[in-house]
């Protein structure tokens, strides 16, 4: 059936994966997604206020401005913090792709996301340099790649964390150009997160109508187990 084949080739690998209950079940077969649940719990619950501007808007509290100081001053520190996370994401997808745990459409999805993370790395790297800073070095990392299920869960955790990390810094960014750039990455991390959540059979919006930010401490604590040396 050439017509059907053609139509199917127009569709993205990930979309086919989502539409195909069999391969989707293979991709996940996940019960709870405990890693992500724990992460989101750490990020704090709530988010039911009708007004968005409340005292609960923790991500922008004054005291958190220096959170990224260890990565550099001001916007350079924030960019280097983001760069460190993007390095980890890129390394994670590289290892996952090489692991042989995924094939076909699953592999295509993970490759695509990995290549987008690599583009984030390149963009952040050159932005830090253009601002006169020194880009953060690539951390040495190691990820547990036991089976497809645990890896898929970890991917979901990592992407949701990434989106929350960018959101946590948006209010701290000084220059509009850096902010615009960060936003253009932030929503892509959100797209990745929602896709993986879909594949994992989890809610695409785990915190409801309003995404929750994660502070630097929470994020670094979550990725610490994957950094070696």
């Amino acid at each position: 059936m050439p017509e059907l084949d053609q139509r199917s080739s127009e569709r993205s690998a990930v979309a086919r994966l989502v539409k195909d209950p069999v391969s989707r079940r293979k991709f996940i077969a996940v019960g709870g997604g405990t890693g992500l649940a724990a992460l989101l719990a750490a990020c704090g619950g709530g988010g039911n206020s009708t007004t968005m501007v409340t005292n609960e808007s923790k991500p922008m509290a004054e005291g958190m401005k220096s959170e990224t100081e260890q990565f550099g001053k001001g916007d350079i520190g924030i960019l280097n913090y983001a760069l460190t996370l993007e390095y980890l994401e890129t390394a994670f997808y590289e290892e996952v792709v090489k692991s042989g745990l995924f094939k076909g459409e699953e592999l295509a999805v993970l490759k695509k996301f990995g290549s987008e993370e690599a583009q984030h790395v390149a963009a952040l790297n050159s932005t830090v340099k253009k601002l006169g800073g020194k880009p953060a070095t690539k951390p040495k990392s190691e990820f547990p790649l036991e089976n497809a299920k645990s890896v898929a869960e970890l991917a979901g955790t990592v992407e949701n964390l990434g989106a929350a990390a960018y959101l946590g810094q948006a209010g701290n960014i000084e220059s509009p150009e850096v902010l615009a750039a960060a936003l253009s990455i932030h929503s892509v991390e959100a797209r990745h997160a929602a896709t993986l959540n879909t594949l994992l059979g989890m809610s695409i919006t785990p915190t409801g109508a309003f995404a929750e930010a994660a502070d630097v401490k929470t994020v670094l604590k979550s990725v610490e187990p994957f950094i070696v040396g």
Partner: protein
Amino acid sequence: MSNKNLSEIDGLVHPELVGVEVVDESGGDISRGDVILKGALAAGAVYGTFMVGPFVRSAFAMGGGTSDVDILNFALTLEYLESTFYEEAMKKVKASGELKPLIKMLAGDEKQHVEALEGTIKKLGGKPVAKPTFNFEYSGTSGFLKLAETFENVGVGAYNGAAPAIKSKEVLAAAGSIVQVEARHAAAIALQNGMEPAPEAFDKALEEKEVLKDVEPFIA
């Protein structure tokens, strides 16, 4: 006020942009909002010329006297549209399987965005814009999904385009928390639609004019 060549600004040098003149009214001190055009151009310098277009046009639309209330009201109009669209779809679209609960969730999220924006505008001393009358014409599930994908992606681009012009950090964080959810919606709808959920590594920012062009056909 002085005219500066972009290549002199904050070391953000990109050969394509040398010769582009921007008006610097802040004496070289970059702050959010008033020098948004400069920021937009610089973002282009950082990210390559493919990004310059949308950023610059966004800057023209949002720069100058645009207040946070103006931006929030602009966002509110889009949220009214999305909210009404999904509200109607709950009755109109014969959805089965996963799509039915998805539409319900989308309707709920957009309604909460509407309420949050209205509340925030009032809190800032502004007046929320009136809800327009909408007219959505589509047929079947595929017609619905196609339109939903357009609206969600326009939503992401609109927030991303307007956000750098937001002056209050609190309003910016709120907008950020909404745009992330819009992006998640966009990905979920794209998956239903058989499209790439994250087609590019960087989401495009849209200018006000582009957003209006996309949504005006649905405003009665």
